[in-house]
């Protein structure tokens, strides 16, 4: 597993949208190579944390540092080579008028990287898409195929850290399994760090090493995935969430 370097460190993060404060004092340390989940229901602020790290939610106080470097409040070109995001809705995250090839080549063009055709084809095959998808438009692909393109796009710049915002929530069960397998394999092959936001606890069980449960903008518990699997979460809300997701609480 990764060394002692921290991939993402959040210290006392308070994020606001206009007048509302969405998160309160978020403090987390995610190691390099780790797969970490932020779990909670809607309104818990988990997606907002991801957006703040990415630079899409600029109003925050506290400290965010990724791979040792402190983050500014907006979007950073250099940062985009180190950290990318996978979005939830496969139907909204691809430009409807661009071919898959154009979508995947764009990050390379922005950063002046060459050999675009070869890289695009290599990435398509890495995410399990046949070459004939290369010049299709998004509406010609199914939800699962689109999500593969979204993952491919995020990996084009070879980041070390991936922020995943409910990557499989909008997918059918059978497709979800494929995408989860893909994510697991890619992480293993490329030594990626994942920060995954989800409300689906079994997905955390399959894909992650540790998790933090969020509620109303606060972290109520940080636990290892073993505790989740054995139903030994400490906090009362975590246990409630666990039970509602169909888990069986261990012991008492």
């Amino acid at each position: 597993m990764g060394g002692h370097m921290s991939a993402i460190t959040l210290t006392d993060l308070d994020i606001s949208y206009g007048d509302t404060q969405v998160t309160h004092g978020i403090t987390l340390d995610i190691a390099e190579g780790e797969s970490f989940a932020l779990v909670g229901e809607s309104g818990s602020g988990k997606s907002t944390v991801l957006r703040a790290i990415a630079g899409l939610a600029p109003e925050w106080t506290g400290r965010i540092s990724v791979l040792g470097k402190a983050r500014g409040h907006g979007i950073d070109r250099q940062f985009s080579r180190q950290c990318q995001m996978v979005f939830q809705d496969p139907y909204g995250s691809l430009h409807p008028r661009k071919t898959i090839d154009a979508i995947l080549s764009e990050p390379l063009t922005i950063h002046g990287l060459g050999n675009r055709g070869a890289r695009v084809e290599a990435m398509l095959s890495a995410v399990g898409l046949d070459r004939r998808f290369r010049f299709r438009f998004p509406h010609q692909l199914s939800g699962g195929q689109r999500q593969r393109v979204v993952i491919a796009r995020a990996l084009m710049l070879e980041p070390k850290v991936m922020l995943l915002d409910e990557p499989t929530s909008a997918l059918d069960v059978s497709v979800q399994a494929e995408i989860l397998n893909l994510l697991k394999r890619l992480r293993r092959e490329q030594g990626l760090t994942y920060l995954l936001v989800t409300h689906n606890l079994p997905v955390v069980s399959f894909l992650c090493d540790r998790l933090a449960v969020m509620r109303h903008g606060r972290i109520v518990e940080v636990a290892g995935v073993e505790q989740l699997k054995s139903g030994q979460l400490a906090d009362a809300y975590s246990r409630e969430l666990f039970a509602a997701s169909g888990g069986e609480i261990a012991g008492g």
Partner: protein
Amino acid sequence: MTDAVPDAAPPPRPSPQGGGSEKALLDIQNLRVSFPTPKGRVEVVKGISFTLGRERLGIVGESGSGKSMTGRSILKLIRPRGRVTADRMMFGDTDLLAQSERQMRAIRGARISMVMQDPKFSLNPVMTVGEQIAEALVTHQKLQRSEIEARVRAMLEAVRINDPDRVAGLYPHEISGGMGQRVMIAMMLIPEPDLLIADEPTSALDVSVQAQVLDIIDDLVTTKGMGLILISHDLNLVSRYCDRILVMNGGQVVEECKASELAQAKHPYTQGLLAAMPQMNETRAELPVLERSQWAGT
């Protein structure tokens, strides 16, 4: 704006009987639904048959399996261009196929109701909650104002909303998703139908609220002796809240079993679906993936 008097005399109600007796609540044989596409007519429901007594039936499938279309075709909500055919579509003694649009209006809401997925989209944003529930009631019955208010209040209490008078005055955007869905249920059950079709009633809700809403549906359905068709993509959910399960894939029913026997499902598709779901106590390195011969080449 609302019709206080039903358009046509409602057909006779099916007599209340336990599930599995002689006269089924719903009897569907060889239901087919097709739509025109640039490449010719495409069938999205390919000849399914089932019966329903006063019990809870779950219809499970992924997107494109035809489960929602099935629910809508029972209520004849499929617009022309789409074609619905069946050998038989009997609701008690009523032949649904033979009902005109006017006659169907007398049935919808009063005899068969439908709860849909997202209350954000199924509640009228410019009417208060109380007005909408009242409308559902007066569409089929003529009642005094005070009686309407009493029924609305009683219904809101039945769906476990704590402050019914206050909530009745709120607009849909002022209430949460879970509460909106409960309002939907209240609206659909206040005319006391015999059959409730719930199409993904909890998919848009948070996990902790899902259980509450399903408990309410379950409770009301069993106390009033209604039939329930629960359409969902979530196998576990359906196995917890239904008596029988139909698994649909590609427009056909591939499996029919008792909910308690879901784990012993025989059809490879069902087994594949069960295996593909990650478990809370997940130990597998990789999730088994469904063999998708229908999707070969895409």
